[in-house]
């Protein structure tokens, strides 16, 4: 049935008004009586042993209530069970500039800041590793004990016979691609408020409530329980509005644990909100990735094999690293039909902030390499780049060579759509000097088929309660982070129950109220929490139908729920209209909801009816069943859980989204500047439950991909981040952002809720290679390193002409503060940051000058 009343209609998000009026509350907007401000002392060294921490002077400061250090919470944790390598505050060692050393809880921010400066920490500085390939050679001064060669994890997968297939290929392309590090930079800096209640029976601190900007409230509850040594039942995690995540809040960030640890020590509520600079240090973004890739094709364009060696610069802790390196390999499959794959992945530790999950987790950088190489091969073959992609399509339903099950597959239509809309056939190669078009494809999981913590529990559970007022309350653990999770939930519930959206209230992500859901990551919410909502609503509808059918003298299956009414099938649409006109139901009031005696009396007199209002049906159901509640849960089917090989648990998903994009660019050959004019982005999301949201997600993904393609990059100098500010990080503004034409393709997945799949991440990965391929079309240079800054473009242009390379940063030494100050880099300014970098030469002046004010 495609005749929906709410699904597929563009609706404003259910929480839109709170966001546009400023009434909606994010974590940092909250306060509780007696709340203290927490401030964290960070490490100024990339790798050092802590020999002594003296907090006595800081503690003596008026207004300082408590200071927590590593010994207050020495238990290790980590988002992955295999990666418990972090402590909330450093116990013996710091591993990156910005690592957490101590936390002050004070009456106000100024006092806390003053106290930080009074904490004396003695460090024994150790040699540090900043380059993953250098780090892999390390024999001594390892970043973590038990990780020889600073290797977090390596995987080696061979499917089919890649060597043989490459030898037999007509054409082979080989090259190294580098994708530099990027970060989420969500607009809301991380914030956590932790508060203990006094237990009435023991009179001591008891239950803990934590409000936090998180994508994963249940994982947070779990890790808090682990580190604080408290039962999970004593911890309540509430997720207020979250100002963007993109993966940066999809794991437990140190401040979330530090706030609770400090609140326990201070015996008062503590709120910590990161400064923007701290957000950059907290990071967990997309790692710098080195990709050595080799792809073979036959003359007809068929891919014979791909071989990839991937090295990821993971930073100082495991974080999601093991999953990232596995995704990078697994998602070589399931987009095209590739019969032979070899993958060697290395996740390496370095002395920089930990990398983790970021939008398009694991797939983006490798996709950039693969799609660029495919473009290269199409040029070698003299084949149209769109055509070579069409020649390598999967034939679903199928299981790929690396064990991924593909059912719905909208990629062919995605390619057709962007080719048609961009005028590809007529315009490609004919735009004139410096202008070009490029195409690329991508895909992504609709949630991971295997959860991080191995268990048989469902990934999502949803409860629904309907009371006599006819209001539908949906309780879901799914986390709204701006992607429209709550709206999706309300839409599905309303569609199934045939009621208006205004009746549905969504209570989400509060571990005391809502049933468990593993969180908002890997684009799992629509598919998994959506299916759970669907099932819960169907269970409630069944109960209503049973009671209503008795009243109407018909079989429950003969009832239709639509437009706030329940009616017999044969009565169809005119009933739905008459209910609207009667004014009884839509207004939301029915006489006798409470005084049901009189309603029943009235009914008896009238005899059975052909239809009932939603409220009447609800009242009948409650009278019949005693209460009206339903529950639904979702666990991915066993056949979608992937192969049995080591690491085969990452990559499988119940469904994959597909995306194809064409980018139009101009390259200025004098300055090296790349301008993206327009991106046509077709995305197969199964079914668009809320088209305005789906389009928003597609545009947002393309835009974030554009940022990574052209300007965003974390620049490091000996472990120090050179650009820890939104201005210096250079996320595109409205002026630099291209038009994006989103095209929704609906392949209607057999298992998705109403056929829906992922729509928030898959598009991102195609944007970078689409732009790179367009640059090739424009000026015939193949860029192997992202972002495609003017410097890199110019270097490639000069190399093509065999001209001498110009080093544009020649002579700009970041250790020379006079030069660097002009550039930004806020850590280098006096008075900013916890302590100046040891490499900063003017640091020496500070010591002698006493005070050192400018």
């Amino acid at each position, binding site marked *: 049935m495609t005749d929906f009343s709410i699904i597929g209609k563009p609706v*404003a998000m259910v929480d839109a008004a709170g*966001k*546009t009026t400023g009434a909606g509350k*994010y974590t940092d907007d909250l306060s509780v009586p007696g709340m203290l401000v927490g401030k964290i002392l960070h490490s100024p060294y990339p790798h050092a042993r802590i020999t002594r921490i003296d907090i006595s002077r800081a503690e003596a400061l008026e207004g300082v209530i408590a200071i927590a250090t590593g010994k207050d919470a020495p238990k290790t944790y980590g988002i992955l069970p295999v990666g418990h390598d972090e402590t909330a505050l450093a116990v013996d060692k710091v591993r990156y500039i910005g690592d957490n050393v101590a936390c002050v809880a004070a009456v106000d921010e100024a006092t806390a800041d003053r106290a930080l400066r009074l904490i004396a920490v003695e460090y024994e500085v150790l040699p540090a590793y900043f380059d993953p390939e250098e780090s892999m050679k390390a024999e001594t001064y390892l970043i973590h004990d038990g990780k020889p060669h600073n290797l977090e994890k390596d995987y080696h997968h061979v499917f089919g016979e890649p060597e043989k297939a490459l030898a037999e290929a007509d054409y082979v392309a080989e090259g190294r691609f580098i994708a530099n590090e990027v970060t989420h930079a969500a607009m*809301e800096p991380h914030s956590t408020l932790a508060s203990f209640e006094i237990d009435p029976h023991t009179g001591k601190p008891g239950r803990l409530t934590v409000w936090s900007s998180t994508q994963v409230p249940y994982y947070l509850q779990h890790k808090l329980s682990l580190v604080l040594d408290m039962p999970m039942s004593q911890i309540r995690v509430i997720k207020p509005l979250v*100002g963007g995540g993109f993966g940066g809040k999809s794991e437990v960030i140190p401040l979330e644990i530090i706030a609770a640890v400090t609140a326990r020590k201070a015996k008062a509520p503590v709120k910590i909100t990161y400064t*923007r600079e701290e957000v950059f240090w907290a990071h967990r973004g997309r790692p710098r990735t080195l990709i050595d890739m080799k792809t073979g094709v036959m003359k007809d364009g068929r891919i014979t094999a791909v071989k990839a060696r991937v090295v990821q610069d993971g930073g100082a802790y495991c974080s999601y690293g093991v999953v990232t390196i596995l995704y990078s390999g697994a998602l070589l499959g399931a987009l095209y039909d590739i019969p032979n794959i070899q993958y060697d992945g290395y996740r390496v530790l370095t002395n920089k902030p930990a990398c983790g999950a970021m939008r398009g987790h694991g797939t983006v950088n490798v996709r950039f390499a693969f799609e660029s190489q495919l473009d290269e091969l199409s040029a070698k073959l003299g084949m149209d780049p769109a055509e070579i992609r069409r020649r390598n399509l999967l034939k679903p339903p199928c299981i790929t060579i690396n064990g991924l099950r593909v059912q719905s597959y909208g990629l062919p239509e995605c390619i057709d759509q962007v080719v048609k809309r961009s005028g590809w056939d007529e315009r490609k190669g004919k735009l004139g000097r410096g202008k070009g078009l490029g195409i690329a494809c991508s895909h992504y999981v609709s949630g991971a088929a295997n959860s991080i913590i191995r268990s048989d529990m469902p990934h999502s559970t949803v409860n629904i309660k309907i009371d006599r007022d006819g209001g539908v309350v949906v309780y879901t653990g799914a986390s709204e982070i701006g992607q429209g999770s709550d709206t999706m939930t309300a839409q599905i519930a309303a569609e199934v129950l045939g009621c208006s959206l205004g009746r549905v209230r969504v209570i989400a992500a509060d571990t005391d109220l809502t049933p468990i859901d593993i969180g908002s990551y890997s684009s799992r919410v629509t598919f998994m929490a959506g299916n759970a909502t669907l099932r819960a609503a169907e269970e409630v509808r069944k109960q209503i139908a049973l009671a209503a059918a008795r009243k109407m003298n018909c079989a429950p299956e003969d009832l239709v729920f639509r437009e706030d009414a329940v009616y017999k099938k044969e009565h169809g649409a005119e009933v739905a209209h008459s209910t609207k006109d009667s004014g009884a139901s839509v207004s939301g009031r029915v006489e006798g909801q409470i005084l049901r005696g009189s309603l029943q009396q009235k009914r008896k007199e009238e005899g059975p009816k052909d239809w009932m209002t939603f409220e009447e049906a609800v009242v009948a159901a409650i009278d019949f069943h005693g209460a009206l509640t339903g529950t639904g849960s979702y666990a991915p089917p066993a056949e979608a859980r992937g192969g049995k090989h080591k690491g085969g648990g990452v990559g499988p998903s119940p469904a994959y989204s597909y995306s194809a994009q064409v980018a139009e660019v101009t390259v200025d050959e004098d300055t090296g500047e790349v301008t993206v004019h327009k991106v046509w982005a077709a995305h197969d999301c199964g079914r668009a439950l809320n088209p305005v949201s789906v389009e928003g997600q597609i*545009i947002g993904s393309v835009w974030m991909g554009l940022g990574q393609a052209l300007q965003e990059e974390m620049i490091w100098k000996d472990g120090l981040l050179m650009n820890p500010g939104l201005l210096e990080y250079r996320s595109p*503004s*409205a002026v630099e952002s291209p038009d994006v034409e989103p095209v929704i393709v609906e392949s209607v997945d057999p298992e998705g809720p109403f056929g829906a799949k992922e729509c928030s991440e898959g598009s991102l990965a195609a944007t970078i290679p689409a732009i790179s391929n367009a640059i090739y079309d424009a000026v015939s240079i193949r860029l192997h390193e992202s972002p495609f800054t003017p410097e890199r473009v110019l270097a490639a242009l000069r190399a093509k002409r065999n001209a001498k390379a110009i080093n544009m940063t020649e002579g700009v030494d970041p250790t020379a503060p006079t030069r660097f100050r002009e550039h930004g880099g806020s850590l280098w300014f006096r008075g900013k940051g916890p302590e100046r970098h040891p490499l900063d030469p003017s640091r020496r002046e500070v010591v002698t000058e006493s005070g050192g004010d400018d």
Partner: protein
Amino acid sequence: MKKELIELKVNGRRQELAIEPSKLLLDVLREDLELTGSKRGCDDSSCGACTVLVDGVSMLSCTLLAASCEEQEITTVEGVSEHGSLAAIQKAYGDWGGAQCGYCTPGFIMTVKSLLSSNPNPTEGEVRHALSGNLCRCTGYNQMYEAIKAAIEAEQKGMATAKS
């Protein structure tokens, strides 16, 4: 630092406040007046999430001393809703997907308000230029342009009906 008494006029209401002279307008709004609609997204005036109107001009409250705004009309996002209902721009931002996570939205709303008060019918280029001081990481801005167009149309229609 010793507190001093200042008087601010915020969203049409006079407020007498004892604050430190060094306190930023954003902190006064959020902490002393509990108007948490204005957000802090950075610390150095690079994101625009804290945008408010001071005498009708959009300003970044994170780099403005509260004490310097005495005698001026300050409008925050909380002062935009008219008579308890959404203003046209707020409605349009919701309908057209101009807000996703919503954290940057109050800043954008204030910037757009300031733009439309001086230029009621801006071209897309003018809109892009005006919005370039505000950062959004969710939307890619495209749906905001639609929202702004829709809001202008709604305003004009509203004015036309008011006249007739």
